[in-house]
Structure formats: C-alpha cells, structure tokens
C-alpha cells in the first residue's frame, strides 16, 4: 500500500467517530429490518408481482428509506473515521459495537426473541471481530 496512514486523532475524537459509525449502523439495520418485516417475504412478492414489484414494495417504504439514510450516514462516517483512526482499531471496534447494539435494538424495537443462544452469538462475534484485528 502506498497510503502513509491516518492522521491520528485524540481519544475523544476517535471514540466519538467510532460511536457515530456504530450508532448510525444500528439505526440503519433496525430500520431496514423493521421495514422488511412489515413488507413481508420478498420471495413471495417477487413470485407474485415480479422483480419490479418487489423493488417498488421495498423502496416505497418510508421506514426503509430512513434506514438507508442512516446506513449512508454510517458509510460516510466510516470513511471519515478510517482517515483519522487506524483501520485496525476503527473497523473492528465499530463492527463489534454494532453487533452488540443490534442485539439490544432488535430486542427492544423489533421485539425479536433474542434468547441466550443469540446473546452468546452476539458476544462471541463481537469478541471474535475484535481479536481479528490483533
């Protein structure tokens, strides 16, 4: 790589940008998941009204559009973070926080049955993602 590395940010800026990436990612995931749950099985919609019908069903949902907006915010804040914080910290830290945040948010907002099995999965994945950066 030709890239010389990021300009190092202070700890507050570092964690603020990482938290922003994670929070917007969680908002995006929960909103799109909620929208998809309301819309229903895409495979069924596609069989009934074709691909364009499925695309229309998804893109006409305001909840979905809000989710995409959050995901876009998360994407650009990740790009911003990557230029200020080391990739080896920013990527796994924001990904791990997103996994944990999603488990909480899915339980609270989507009323998903986050049982012990899924909590374990979220924690294992969260720890695993962090270790990958070592």
């Amino acid at each position, binding site marked *: *790589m*030709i*890239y*010389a590395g*990021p*300009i190092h940010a202070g700890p507050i800026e570092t964690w603020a940008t990482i938290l922003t990436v994670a929070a917007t990612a969680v908002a995006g*995931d*929960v909103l*799109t*998941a909620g929208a*998809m*749950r309301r*819309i*229903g*099985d*895409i*495979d*069924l919609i596609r069989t009934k009204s074709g691909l364009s019908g499925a695309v229309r069903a*998804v893109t006409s949902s305001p909840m979905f559009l809000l989710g995409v907006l959050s995901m876009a915010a998360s994407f*650009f804040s990740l*790009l*911003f973070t*990557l*230029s*200020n914080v080391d*990739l080896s910290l920013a990527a796994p830290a924001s*990904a791990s926080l997103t*996994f944990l945040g*999603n*488990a909480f948010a*899915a*339980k609270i907002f*989507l*009323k*998903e*049955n*986050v*049982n012990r*099995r*899924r909590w*374990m*999965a*979220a*924690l*294992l*994945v969260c*720890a*695993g*993602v*962090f*270790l*990958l*950066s*070592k």
Partner: protein
Amino acid sequence: MKHTLTPQRYLILLAVMLTAAVGDTLLSHGMGQVGPVSLANLGLLLAALRNPWVITGILCLLGFFASYLTALSWADLTFVLPSTAFGYVVVAFLAKYWQHETITLYRWAGILLIVCGVGFVANGPSLTLHESQHPMEEPAPVSEGASTGGSQ
C-alpha cells in the same frame, strides 16, 4: 417455531457473507489509494467515488444489500447479522491462502469465536413469530375474507 431454511435461502446467506467481505476489502484498498480525508477536505469523499476500486467495492456492496434485504424479509436481524460476520473469516482465509499473509494466533482465536457464534444462531430458529403474526415461511392460501387479522 420450526424455521428450517431452504437450500436457496442458504445460498442467499452465502451471498450476504461473500459480497460483504469482498466489497469491504475493495473499498479499503481504494480508500488507501485516495488517502486521508479530513473535515476540511470532505470533497475528497466525492473524489473517492471515481476510484475504480471504490466503484467495484460499492457494486459488490449493492449486491450485498440486495441479498441482505432478501434475507431480512424472511429471517430475524439477530439471525442474519452473525452470517455477515462470517465474511471476516472468509477475508482472513483469502488473506492467508491467496495473498499469503500470515495469520496470528489472535486472529485464529477470533475466527474460532466467530465460527462458534454463527453456529450458535444457525442452529436456532431463523424468525421470531409474534402471536399477531402469521408465519411467512409457507405461502398460506390467501383468500380475501380469510385474513386472520394478523397484519396491522
């Protein structure tokens, strides 16, 4: 609560894993070429959209998004997300066997944890059914008057 996925649905989950991993790798490579972006230099983010690696990465991530949304329409968020994490494992293996990078013991431990995490949810049900909801797995015969009042 039986929710076994059909082979086709497992293929969608596989696409979720692979496209996310490859897309992120391409983006990371592209942004490495673009260089550091700062608050004073946000225009560089738009310039990044002209980098071929970033463009290919975004195309891959679009494929990821389509398969991810499809998966979310028939499975829980907490079921689908660990499979996206499996993409990290794919990247690590690509790095080792294709790019011949060395993988540290920490990374192997991380890979093991993610595999366990994915195994944990993969064995459980894929969708939470609420009492007010009718199962979306089997296409129930829909007749106009026969709605159970399930959907809001």
